[in-house]
């Protein structure tokens, strides 16, 4: 958690600190600032989909097991179904749809998912794309994973087999019932290569 998020997580006026079961929250999603009053029980996912009209993140299991609801909060991947909207007020949320845009252009992951047929029905895809964006950042930082040979060192991404294993392990929180995993792994590997992470 960086300091920006921590600073943004203090109680503003109109929160439920007076004991009410509703709270006024400011949610910044894909660059647009929304102010809504939500029931404290509302997840970030439901707030986006039902109150803000932002339907990029999908509700799969609603229990944190499938990854379809994955979004980026302050650049890091989280599950929006297990995030209470009230606890993420003033957070900077990016969905898969927000990764591309007129100013941003097409995100390399969007193109790579098309290049490799990394989906069939597409329901899990926005979550896959957000998770992949997080994975690429984590690889660029040299963070290890459970399949990194030496946890004290950096992952060896120059070997294509090991890069594939690193991607598969890091993407394991995103299920695809169509079984497009082969294409998903290839798509993430393509962008990793474009960014020079495979050296």
């Amino acid at each position: 958690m960086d300091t920006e998020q921590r600073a943004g997580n203090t109680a503003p006026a109109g929160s439920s600190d007076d004991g009410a079961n509703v709270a006024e929250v400011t949610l910044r999603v894909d660059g647009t600032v929304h102010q809504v009053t939500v029931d404290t029980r509302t997840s970030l996912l439901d707030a986006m989909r039902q109150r803000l009209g932002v339907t990029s993140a999908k509700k799969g299991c609603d229990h944190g097991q499938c990854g379809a609801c994955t979004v980026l909060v302050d650049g890091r991947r989280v599950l929006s179904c297990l995030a209470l909207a009230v606890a993420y007020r003033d957070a900077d949320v990016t969905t898969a749809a927000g990764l591309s845009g007129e100013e941003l252009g097409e995100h390399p992951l969007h193109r790579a998912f098309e290049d490799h047929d990394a989906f069939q029905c597409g329901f899990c895809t926005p979550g896959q794309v957000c998770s992949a964006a997080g994975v690429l950042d984590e690889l660029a930082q040299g963070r290890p994973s459970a399949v990194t040979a030496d946890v004290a060192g950096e992952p060896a991404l120059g070997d294509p087999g090991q890069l594939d294993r690193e991607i598969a392990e890091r993407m394991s929180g995103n299920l695809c019932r169509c079984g497009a995993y082969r294409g998903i792994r290839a798509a993430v590997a393509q962008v990793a290569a474009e960014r020079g992470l495979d050296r």
Partner: protein
Amino acid sequence: MKPFAYLTPPDPRAAVAAVAERPDAAFLGGGTNLVDHLRLGVTHPGLLVDVRSLTSDEITDAGGGLRVGAAVCNADLAADPRVRQRYPVLAQALLAGASGQLRTMATTGGNPLQRTRCVYFQDVSTPCNKREPGSGCSAIGGATRSHAIFGASEHCVATHPSDMAVALAALDAEVLVLGPDGERTIPFTDLHRLPGSTPERDTVLEHGELITAIDLPASTIAARSRYRKVRDRASYAFALVSVAACLDVEDGIVRDARIALGGVAHKPWRAYLAEEALRGAPATDDSFRAAADAELAQARPLEGIDGGNAFKIPLVRGALAGTLRDLAGEETRP
């Protein structure tokens, strides 16, 4: 889901006071387990006190060891170079747990306090002494594949699900706690309790007590440590059995060992009998298996409609011996 109020107090003391004065209040950290339980109806607090921004999110050098603030997320703790070099078993345990998204949300203070994944505990339509004291245990006589072989009671046979906690038990970590009456320090091995007749209590923490940090002690043995997790699939699954081990070998003789087992008990199971058997023994596969057997002598596997959990006995023996073998191999490298 039952309605609840939500509070972000200005500091940890105010958070402790807010929870202590209301029996139906709960702390909210990363929320990865609690929010799911709210949705399942496993728990129904009337007030959530969000402590995520109140405790430290920094890892600081302290007395030759490290102090980990309760708000440090699991992903950042696993990525810290000091943790990876000085306490590899902890980094490995963290990376073996959950998914990348969950590790970004889950906190150092919250991870050890996650509840059991016993299916009957999470299914509110079945009796469970941990969820509803006195209602009975549905696992006993039911499906016990994921349940305890050590320290269970006639009231509860659940296991603790955390990987991080197994490593912390092996590392002799300490838990810094703030309560209504001030601060106290609890050895990590004493934080969790066995179920006995009160399985509703996972830990020794009193209502309103808040974990503010976890201390990793200065340690030479921890630099040679490993975590091995055995599970039904290669990633994103809870442990059937896991091993956290630190091993010190000199001239082919085990000088010291620290071992904790996961997936086998209501708490991270520190394997004191195995450690005792290893000290002074030759660092051989025979010694490692004998040490495992010394611990397993007190195992009490469960029968079950799914075949029970006696399979965990050879699984512990193999996983523990294999982990020690790996560590002994490390020792002989130049």
